[in-house]
C-alpha cells in the first residue's frame, strides 16, 4: 500500500511541475509585448527596453523558464504581480483557503446528497421516485451553473432579499455559490451511483447473499455498496476537477475574493505573473484532489491493493473489467489490509489506466 501511495504522490508532483512548465511555455508565446502594455503611451523605445530588462523579459526562453521553475518550486515565490506590485504567492495564500473552503463545501454537498439520492433511486428502480429523480437529474445536469447562479441571485438576493449575492462576510454568503456549483455535480453523481448500484444488484453474489437468508439491509451495506463504490469514486474525480473549474466562474459572478477571482481580474489587466501563479496553484489544488481520489481507490478497490501487495503481479494484462469483483469483497476490504486475502479473479488493471480511462460514459471533466 505504501508503495502505491508513494507512487501517487510522485505522480502528483510530476503533474504539478508539468503544469507549471506547460503554462509558462504557453504564456511565453502569448503575442504582444507586456512591457509595451505596461508603459505609458509616450514611452520611448528605450523606456520600453528598460522595462523589458527590469521584468527579465529580454532573457532567452530557457533562462526565463529556469528562473520561473526555480523560484516557484524551490523558493516558493511566484514573482510579483505587475499590476498590483505585490507578491503573487502571498496574495494567493491569502485567498486559497477561501477557494478551498468553497470547493470543499461543494464537494461535500455533492457527495452527501448525490450518492444517497442515486442509491435511493436504484432501490426504488422503475417507481415514480426513480423516474422523477432521473428526469430531474437530467434537467439539473443541463442547467449552466453560472445561469443558475444568476437566477438564484435574482430570486433570493434581488427579489426576496434573503441571501447576500456577494462577499464572504457571513456564512450566508456561501449558500448561493455552493448550491449553484453543486447542483450539476449532484445530478451527475446521482445518475452514476444509480447506474453503478443497478449493475451490482444483478450480480450473482447478491443473489447468493439473499439465498443465504441474509437481511436485505445487510445485503445492501455489505455487498452492494462496497462494490458499487468504485465507479462512484471514478466519477467523483472528474466532478472534483469540474468543481475547481466551476469556482473560477462562480467567484467572478459572486465577487468571491478567491483564487479564481484573482485570476479573472488579472486577465483583464494582462498581469502575466498573477495569471500564471493562479493557474499553477489551482492546478496543484486539483492534483491534490486527484491524489485523494486515487488514494480512495487504493482503499476501496482490492485489485489495486492486491496489485501492490504481490509484486510479481505488477503488470496487468490489459484492461480488465473494473467492476464487480466477486463475492466477499465487503469483508475483504477490511481484513486484507496486509494484502494476504485476495478475492478477486479479474486480472489486475494497470492503475493509471483504470483511474482515468474508465470514464467513457461520464460527463466530461471540465
Amino acid at each position, binding site marked *: 500500500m505504501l508503495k502505491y501511495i508513494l507512487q501517487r504522490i510522485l*505522480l502528483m508532483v*510530476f*503533474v*504539478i511541475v*508539468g*503544469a507549471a512548465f*506547460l*503554462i509558462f511555455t*504557453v*504564456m511565453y508565446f*502569448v*503575442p504582444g509585448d507586456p512591457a509595451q502594455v505596461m508603459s505609458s503611451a509616450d514611452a520611448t523605445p528605450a523606456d520600453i527596453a528598460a522595462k523589458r530588462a527590469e521584468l527579465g523579459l529580454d532573457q532567452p526562453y530557457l533562462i526565463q523558464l529556469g528562473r520561473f521553475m526555480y523560484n516557484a518550486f524551490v523558493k516558493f515565490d511566484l514573482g510579483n504581480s505587475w499590476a498590483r506590485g505585490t507578491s503573487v504567492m502571498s496574495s494567493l495564500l491569502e485567498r486559497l483557503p477561501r477557494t478551498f473552503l468553497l470547493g470543499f463545501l461543494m464537494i461535500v454537498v455533492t457527495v452527501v446528497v448525490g450518492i444517497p439520492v442515486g442509491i435511493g433511486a436504484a432501490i426504488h428502480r422503475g417507481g415514480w421516485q426513480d423516474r422523477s429523480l432521473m428526469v430531474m437529474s*437530467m434537467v439539473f*445536469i*443541463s*442547467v*449552466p*451553473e*453560472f*445561469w443558475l447562479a*444568476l*437566477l438564484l*441571485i*435574482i430570486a433570493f438576493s*434581488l427579489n426576496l432579499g434573503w441571501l447576500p449575492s456577494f462577499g464572504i462576510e457571513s456564512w450566508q454568503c456561501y449558500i448561493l455559490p455552493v448550491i449553484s456549483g453543486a447542483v450539476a455535480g449532484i445530478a451527475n453523481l446521482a445518475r452514476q451511483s444509480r*447506474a453503478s448500484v*443497478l449493475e451490482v444488484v*444483478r450480480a450473482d453474489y447478491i443473489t447468493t447473499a439473499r439465498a443465504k437468508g441474509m437481511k436485505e439491509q445487510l445485503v445492501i451495506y455489505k455487498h452492494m455498496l462496497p462494490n458499487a463504490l468504485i465507479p462512484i469514486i471514478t466519477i467523483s474525480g472528474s466532478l472534483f*476537477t*469540474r468543481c*475547481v*473549474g466551476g469556482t*473560477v*466562474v462562480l467567484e*467572478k*459572478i459572486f465577487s468571491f475574493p478567491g483564487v479564481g477571482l484573482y*485570476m*479573472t481580474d488579472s*486577465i*483583464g489587466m494582462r498581469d502575466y505573473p498573477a*495569471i500564471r501563479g493562479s*493557474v499553477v496553484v*489551482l*492546478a496543484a489544488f*486539483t*492534483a491534490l484532489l*486527484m491524489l485523494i481520489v486515487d488514494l480512495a481507490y487504493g482503499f476501496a478497490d482490492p485489485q489495486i491493493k492486491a496489485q501492490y501487495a504481490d509484486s510479481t503481479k505488477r503488470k496487468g494484462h*490489459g*484492461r480488465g473489467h473494473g467492476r464487480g469483483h466477486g463475492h466477499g469483497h465487503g469483508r475483504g476490504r477490511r481484513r486484507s489490509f496486509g494484502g494476504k486475502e485476495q478475492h478477486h479473479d479479474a486480472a489486475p488493471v494497470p492503475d*493509471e*489506466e483504470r483511474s*482515468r*480511462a474508465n*470514464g*467513457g*460514459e461520464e*460527463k*466530461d*471533466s*471540465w
Partner: protein
Amino acid sequence: MVTDRKAGFPVAAAVPAMRQKKEGMWKQTLKRLSKDKMAMLGLVGIVVLVFVAIVAPYITPYSYETMDTLNMNVGPSWQHLLGTDTLGRDYLSRLLYGSRYSLVLGISSSFLAVFLGIVIGAIAGFFGRWADNAIMRMCDIIQAIPGVMIAIVVSLMLGNGYWVTIWALAIGGCSHGIRMTRAQVMSVRSSEYLDAARTVNCSTFRIIVKHILPNAMSPMLLDFTMRIANMIQFSAGLSVIGLGVQPPTPEWGAMLSAGRDFIRSSPHLVIFPGLFIFAISFFINIFGDGLRDALDPKLKK
C-alpha cells in the same frame, strides 16, 4: 467502451450479401433509438433549434442589429416578445440569430476536439513507445488543469474572438478523446484482423482509418454529441469571465454575460439567453443519453 467487432467492423467495408444476413450495427442502433421516447423528444428539440438557426432571417420579427431607440432595455411586451437589450435591439431576434453562432460554435469545437483526440490518440496508441509515453504524460498534466483554465490560457495566447474560442475549447477538451482513442487502438492492436491487414501490405494510415477507427466510432459519436452542450456552456462561461466570444456577436453566452451588468434593472437580459443554453443542453443530453443506451444495449437493463 463498445468493441462490437462482429457488428461494428463490416459497416465500412460491408459486403452486400452479409448485410442481408444481419442488420448493421447502425441500423439496429437507429431502431432502438427510435423506440426511446426521451431521446426522440431530445432529437425533436435539437431539430427545431437547428431549423430555427437556418431560417433565422426569415422568421425573426426584426433584424438583430436594428435599434428601437424608443424602447431601450424594456421587458417582454407584445411589440418585443422577449424585450429589448440596452441598445434597444429586439432580444428575441438576437436570440434566434444567436442560435446560429452558438450551434456552430458547439458543433465545430466539439468536432475539432474529437478530431484532435482521434489523431493524437491514434498516434499514441498505434506507435506506442516514446510517442505514447509523451502524449499520455501530457494528458495527465492537462487533465489536472481544469479545462476552463486551459481554455483561458489558450484564449490569452490566441486572443478573443469567435473562431479563436472554438479552438481554445477544442484544445481544452481533447484529452478525453485522446485517452479514448488510445485505449480503443490498444485493445484492437494485437487482433488478428490487423495482422491480416498487415499481411496484405496495408499502409499504417489505411490500417488506422479503415480498420481501427470504425471500431471506435460509437464512443466517439457519443462523445461528440454530449460535448456539444458542454462546449456551448463553457463558451458562455468564458464570456462571463471576459474571454471568449464578445459582444456585439449575438452568441448566447456573450449576450448573457453582457446582460449580467443589468441584472438588477432588467433580469430578462440574463434569463432568456440562459434559457436557450439550458434548452439546447437539455435536448442534447437526453438525446445523448438515449443514444448511449441504443449504442450499447448491455448498459440498459
